[in-house]
């Protein structure tokens, strides 16, 4: 069954690419059907435990394998991936209806489903890496779907290369982990750890190794300083943003880290590696939230919000509470996919207008989209009772617990501060885009989208509410202790306070405004980080350095050393020059000389 789950999307992608390029309608149905079947299989496998593998590369005793590992973590994650996947596929049927390259789009989606399934089911690290690269490919293809637009083509390239930088560290981490634990499979690492392996390895080596592995997550989950690709990735069609760049692929980094954490044990992170990971997560969540407050493009606001929420999850892993991070991943997947698809519906209705200041009053024009978006908004800002509330509580608890143990409440207060900012920028988005009066013709002509688009929104809205309650925990990949329970304690008041502290000023500041009353260019320009990368690192460091190396290569190695040697050779006998038509005879002479030498040496 698990093999079918893995390979069915690949078969769909291959069929679309090979046979259905000219029949886009059937191609789209093939993709939707394949993901529907995989959802059914994922639900059937939920909670099962099994492993199986086939040899992929065998050298003597050494084996690289393709295999699956089913447990609560992987099967729960599969439900998220296929569940969001199915809704996004259905939504795309309508959203991409008139696209000229619809078949290519659905081929890309199916390829993505295959790659993502591979990461989730992987039983060993090489397999994770294989599919890790393949999700990178499908993300590249889908961001660059409208490749004739310069911005889309550049964004696709940027995403791939930035991820490769993360993979540089990731590969080193995998190799070191192999050296340390003697195994590439997660089960092997688990038994190494159970056998007391951790005691025999120095903290420095282990920590360095885990940080290298973490580099992979920094790339894929767009943590600072490699976060720059994710906002640009919004150049892709909006359903892609919802599925890949919000709900599933970007969460793969967190998933992978938690897989490592649960294999070799959370205590392996009890050193500088765990702290560094937590800091990077915390800084990312804070900076991205600040950047989000000043964006005007509806998708970019959501993209920065995704960065910020991913930062939460990474921080939780770093604080040795990967289960809290995974729980937030689970609830976030539903409500962020909802918000992205909702923004897709808005963009579709407003004739591809993405600036929130040119929208307005959409709640009345598009009531279903508007109300489901409202639900997603409330879940993201963690209103008590929504799924987002329960999971964010768990992260605050983890930060608080760490603070108690290490006398360091910084993570807790950063997390609370990010909660304030989240409710502020989301209130801004909702008030400006959905309330008040329309501010452009496109917005005034907007009307509700069709059922193929609003049914996924409604389903996601339901999940965004109930996803946090206890009854849904069987679906979740990992549920921390005490999740889904209402408990009125100081942390509860901190999170409610943060909610009010962000939402009330946000409403008062933006309600009824025609343009943004606040202007902080530094936040709007994303802390100038993108400028720094493009203009300093890429232009001067990489390209400049490459040009210098090229210069030396041409003039030093090629010109002086080699040129000198060849002049020497020419001068030595003028042999080459004298033979008129050159190369053949000259060469034949050298060759003949060689043969004579051989015979001379061996015969005498």
């Amino acid at each position, binding site marked *: 069954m698990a093999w079918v789950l893995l390979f069915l999307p690949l078969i769909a992608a291959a069929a679309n690419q090979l046979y259905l390029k000219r029949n886009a309608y059937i191609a789209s149905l093939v993709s939707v059907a394949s993901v529907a079947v995989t959802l059914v299989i994922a639900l059937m496998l939920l909670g099962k435990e099994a492993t199986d593998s086939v040899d992929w*590369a065998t050298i003597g*005793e050494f084996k690289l394998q393709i295999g699956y590992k089913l447990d609560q973590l992987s099967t729960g994650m599969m439900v998220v991936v296929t569940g969001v996947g199915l809704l996004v596929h259905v939504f795309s049927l309508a959203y991409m209806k008139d696209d000229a390259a619809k078949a290519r789009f659905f081929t890309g989606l199916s390829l993505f489903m295959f790659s993502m399934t591979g990461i989730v089911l992987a039983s060993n690290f090489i397999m994770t890496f294989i*599919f890790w*690269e*393949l999700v990178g490919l499908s993300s590249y293809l889908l961001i660059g779907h409208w490749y*004739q637009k310069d911005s889309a083509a550049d964004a696709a390239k940027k995403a791939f290369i930035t991820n490769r930088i993360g993979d540089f560290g990731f590969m080193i981490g995998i190799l070191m982990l192999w050296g340390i634990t003697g195994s590439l499979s997660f089960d092997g690492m688990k038994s190494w750890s159970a056998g007391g392996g951790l005691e025999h390895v*120095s903290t420095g080596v282990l920590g360095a190794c885990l940080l290298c592995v973490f580099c992979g997550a920094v790339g894929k989950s767009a943590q600072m300083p490699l976060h720059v690709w994710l906002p640009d990735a919004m150049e892709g069609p909006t359903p892609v943003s919802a599925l890949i760049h919000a709900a599933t692929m970007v969460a793969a980094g967190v998933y992978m880290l938690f897989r490592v954490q649960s294999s070799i044990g959370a205590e392996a992170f009890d050193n500088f590696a765990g702290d560094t990971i937590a800091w990077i997560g915390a800084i990312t969540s804070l900076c991205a939230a600040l950047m989000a407050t000043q964006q005007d493009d509806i998708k970019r606001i959501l993209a920065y919000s995704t960065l910020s929420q991913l930062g939460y999850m990474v921080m939780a892993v770093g604080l040795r509470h990967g289960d809290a991070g995974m729980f937030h991943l689970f609830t976030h997947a539903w409500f962020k996919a909802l918000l992205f698809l909702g923004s897709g519906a808005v963009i579709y209705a407003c004739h591809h207008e993405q600036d929130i200041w040119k929208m307005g009053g959409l709640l009345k024009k598009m009531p279903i989209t508007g109300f489901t978006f409202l639900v997603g908004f409330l879940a993201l800002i963690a209103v008590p009772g929504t799924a987002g509330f329960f999971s964010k509580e768990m992260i605050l608890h983890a930060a608080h617990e760490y603070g108690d143990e290490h006398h360091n409440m910084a993570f807790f207060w950063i997390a609370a501060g990010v909660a304030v900012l989240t409710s502020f920028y989301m209130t801004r988005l909702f008030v400006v885009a959905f309330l008040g009066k329309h501010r452009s013709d496109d917005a005034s002509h907007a009307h509700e989208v069709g059922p193929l688009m609003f049914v996924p929104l409604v389903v996601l809205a339901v999940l965004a509410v109930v996803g946090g309650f206890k009854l849904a925990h069987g679906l979740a990949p990992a549920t921390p202790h005490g999740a889904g329970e209402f408990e009125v304690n100081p942390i509860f008041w901190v999170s409610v306070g943060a909610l009010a502290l962000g939402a009330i000023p946000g409403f008062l500041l933006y309600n009824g405004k025609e343009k943004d009353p606040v202007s902080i260019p530094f936040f709007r320009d994303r802390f100038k980080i993108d400028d720094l990368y493009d203009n300093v690192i890429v232009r001067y460091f990489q390209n400049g350095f490459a040009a210098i190396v090229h210069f030396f290569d041409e003039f030093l190695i090629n010109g002086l050393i080699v040129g000198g040697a060849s002049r020497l050779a020419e001068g030595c006998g003028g042999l080459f020059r004298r033979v008129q038509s050159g190369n053949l005879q000259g060469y034949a002479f*050298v060759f003949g000389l060689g043969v004579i030498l051989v015979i001379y040496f061996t015969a005498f």
Partner: protein
Amino acid sequence: MLLLLVLIPLAAFLAILCGAPARKTAVAAGWANLALGVWAAFSFNAKIWGISLPVLAKPALHLSLAMTDGMSAIMVLLSVIVTLAALLSGKAPEGKETLYYGSSLLISAGAIGAFAATDLFFFYAFHELALIPTFLMIGILGRGDRKEAAWKITIYLGLGSIILLAGLVWLASITGTFDIPKMVDFVKDHPIDAASQKGIAALLLVGFGVLVSLFPFHSWAAPAYASAPAPTSMLHAGVLKKFGLYGLLRIAIPLVPEGMQAWLTPLLVLLLGNILWVGLVTINQKRLDLMLGNSSVMHMGYIFLAIAALAASHTATGFTNTLGQPAAVLLMFGHGISIAMLFGLADKIERSTGTLELTDLGGLAKSAPGLAFMFGMVGMASIGLPGLANFAGEVLVFLSSFQNYDPSKGLGPVQIACILAIWGVVISAIYMLRAYRNIFQGPQVKATTDSADLTLADRIPALILAIALLAVGLYPNLLLNLLSLK
């Protein structure tokens, strides 16, 4: 029987000289050799496929061809696949068909002979046989600055061959035989003394190294490939260049292991020169053909890394590294197929748009989607995307470098080199995606508005190579199983 694989292209060559229709004869020979080569590789058996004809009594020279192990089988397989693709994708200039197809056939015959030879003399001679038509093709049918490119490659490879010859002669004079298996047996009982090992290894490393464009002996490669007609670039970069690496694995590693180990650090530094230095040079290229030529130089570094990992692991009882050799062979195969396909498709781009300047191109995917798909696929293969052959080779190279890693002793020189080498995966992604972006994506420009897509005839060679990349990439055991046969 193996003689047939060499004789078929030679016979076709003679037939073309005698006036047989050049393209048809060559392509027929290519198909026949592909069928025979695939059969030979997957049913290989030294008894059936070996041959040994006495040529000279003193010194005893035998024309011996055999598939002594899977490594020969895989290299022969690579040769026949690339040969057919090269013969199918080239388009000879008017009136030059005889030279064009004849030379390609000679290169192919020479390469197959070298990979199958078990006699040192013929091992060397077959390679020389293949080099001469390579020079001719560049000098006579090349593009751009063909005279200079031809001169440069001739001087370089000529000097490299002479240095190599000195090393081989030295080896033969110690072991007293030209028969490679006998030489290996001889050193088992009478290991060569350390000083001679070091000297021989130096000659072999430089000699083979020049042939494989080891840094800093690499500057012949890119101009030669850019200037050469497509089939020549495909055959040389794809197949013939692997002779040097094959030679290191076949001759240097078993016969002078201590010598190879003695040169470990310089070798690691030079191979990093290939990956990082030449990698940066590749980023700075403005023309596709030069970029591809440099990228091919860069990727040689990874194969050298596997050889270095193998050499580093030599102990009194043998090599403790088991992954290095299979990794090197797998990557040679993957790289050979992918670089041949890249040169073949670059030729199509030039014929379809009239230029290879990256800044003059754009939006070609719109007018030539088939070409864009094929180029995208092989571009991804060359930067190590899983599912295509190069990745399997690269990941095994990395694993082989860490096979002898002991965390309690810290990182050794091979591991440090490997870590630096992995940065190459970022470098290659940068130049390959940038090239793809500039050629195929973005709005269309003048050169690409009415460009023709691949025709059915163009698709066949690309498909042959693509299938090889996919088959080995999806299931590397297809080739690795051959290596485990004894």
